[in-house]
């Protein structure tokens, strides 16, 4: 089984889910970021809305950008957000 994870959400991902962050324990068959997004999408309407276009969602594991095929084993914090618009 996976350990509890801190999940953080930013910008419209945060607004759609309605939470800035939460602690969740994904099931053991969730091994990478793409699977985590799929699992979260099944948790309710607000998640399905936030992740309706998984291709545009950016992810970071422990504050480093990762691709959706990145394994989540050992992660303490995973963040989801739209493409950045700073600068």
């Amino acid at each position, binding site marked *: 089984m996976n350990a509890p994870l801190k999940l*953080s959400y*930013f*910008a*419209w991902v*945060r607004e759609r889910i309605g939470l800035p962050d939460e602690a969740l324990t994904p099931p053991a068959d969730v091994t990478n970021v793409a699977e985590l997004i799929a699992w979260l999408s099944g948790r309710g309407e607000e998640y399905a809305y936030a992740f309706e276009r998984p291709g545009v969602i950016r992810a*970071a594991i422990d*504050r*480093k*950008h990762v691709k959706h095929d990145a394994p989540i084993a050992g992660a303490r914090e995973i*963040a989801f*957000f*739209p*493409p*950045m*618009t*700073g*600068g």
Partner: protein
Amino acid sequence: MDGGGARGAVPINVRIQREDFDAAAEVAALTQGRADVGAVVAFTGLCRDEAGALAALELEHYPGMAEDEIARVAQEAAARWPILGATAIHRYGKIAPGGNIVLVVATSPHRRAAFEAAEFMMDYLKTRAPFWKKEHRRDGTTGEWVEAKDADDSAAQRWT
């Protein structure tokens, strides 16, 4: 924060802050007391009013990661160009039209390195630093999140 790159003691200053910055003071911090700097390029990004439609931009960021990513961008610039120092400051919170958003400064003995390092930092910062802009419109409507531009990705890719 120290760059710690190949050239050792290149000063790299990265700050994420709500308050405004003073570009002149940041340039002075990189140049005063030394006579090896021949070129300073300072980029300031400001909030535009979108032809009067915008009341303010609200900048959200990912604390911790924002500092880390911008420091990585500055260190990459210090590894790629012979710069003598770099400063990057990004504000968050509500910023009115005409207000400062971001400052990038690069110093070098020669102009080309200072220009390229500063432009590289801006291009990478735009696509890598976790900041998001939301618009507050003058007509009072709830602001939209600013959409990322493909042009920003291609601007960053030309350095690879």
